[in-house]
């Protein structure tokens, strides 16, 4: 039978752990709500941007624009790994890491072996995951984006990617992150950022509206296309951020539940031990009294 004091100490420690997990759950729930609002507020912007792009059409003439679509021979690859800064959120970060590892060992094996695969980390955890891969050049300039997540930071990171791609430092850029479906579900996502994958616009939907283009279509596209790419990265960051808090909320909820179960079990043990010691004491007294009487 377990020692009374030992059990009491364990109950105490488990219940203080439970308090922490409960608090973390509540904090994540609040942060999740804020992250969701940020996604919501970004959505009209993205939609309008898409709308304008459709209206402008996609006849691309200028060489600068063509470079965004150019399918070069893949020799150098950049993977953008978006994870969280902190752990305790279930398989959130490990899933992205695993996906990255699959890409290294399968799709881009040759490039990785040649040391031509770079990774950009947004969020600290991703870097920890790939530290042991010495062949990978780590780009950590934008790692701490999540400490103050706003469009400026994400746009700066995207700008860097666009520049490097334009300078032919990379031939393919892919983004790996947890997409947000709802608080409990993350969708592991692997998006190709560059070169831009042309989505087939349904037929020739040149709008009937006779737009004035100021100064001209090409210049407008030169603003629109990078802008939509930056928005794409920002959206990925926002979704990952919301997913992180969703994942943490769920895992902390589970942890709180488990701690509760454990406490119940320990309480049962404690009461049994207490009862046993009382019974033992009683029988000792009774035995002693009987010995005196006889």
């Amino acid at each position: 039978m377990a020692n009374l004091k030992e059990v009491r100490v364990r109950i105490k420690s488990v219940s203080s752990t439970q308090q922490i997990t409960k608090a973390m759950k509540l904090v994540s729930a609040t942060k999740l709500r804020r992250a969701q609002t940020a996604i919501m507020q970004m959505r009209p912007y993205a939609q309008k941007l898409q709308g304008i792009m459709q209206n402008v059409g996609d006849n691309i003439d200028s060489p600068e624009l063509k470079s965004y679509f150019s399918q070069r021979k893949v020799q150098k690859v950049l993977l953008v790994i978006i994870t969280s800064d902190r752990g305790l959120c279930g398989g959130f970060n490990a899933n992205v890491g695993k996906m990255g590892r699959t890409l290294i060992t399968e799709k881009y094996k040759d490039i990785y072996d040649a040391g031509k695969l770079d990774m950009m980390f947004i969020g600290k955890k991703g870097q920890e995951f790939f530290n042991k891969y010495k062949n990978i050049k780590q780009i950590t300039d934008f790692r701490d984006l999540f400490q103050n997540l706003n469009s400026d930071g994400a746009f700066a990171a995207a700008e860097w990617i666009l520049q490097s791609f334009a300078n032919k430092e990379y031939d393919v850029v892919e983004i790996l992150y947890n997409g947000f479906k709802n608080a409990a579900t993350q969708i592991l996502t692997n998006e190709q950022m560059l070169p831009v994958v042309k989505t087939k616009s349904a037929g020739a939907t040149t709008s009937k509206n006779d737009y004035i283009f100021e100064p001209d279509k090409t210049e407008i596209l030169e603003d629109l296309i990078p802008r939509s790419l930056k928005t794409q990265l920002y959206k990925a960051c926002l979704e990952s951020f919301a997913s992180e808090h969703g994942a943490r909320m769920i895992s902390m909820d589970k942890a709180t539940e488990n701690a509760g179960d454990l406490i119940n079990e320990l309480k049962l043990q404690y009461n049994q031990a207490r009862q046993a010691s009382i019974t033992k004491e009683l029988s000792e007294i009774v035995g002693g009294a009987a010995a005196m009487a006889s």
Partner: protein
Amino acid sequence: MTLEILTPDKSLFNGEVESVLLPGSSGTFEILNNHAPIVARLKAGTLKVRSKEGNQNFEIKGGIVEMLDNKIVVLA
């Protein structure tokens, strides 16, 4: 006509206006009611909104404006 000023972080303005003065990439221009459909590139500058409630200024770092059917959308 209605004006919407959107940034990736939030919506800055949404409402009825009388005129908007915009820093176009090839010169400042103004959009009044019933302007022809237009898509224009904006450079960094001040965006001046005139409405019945008074005037409002917004600083932008460049962007795109689209006007269609008396609806203006500014993506900054």
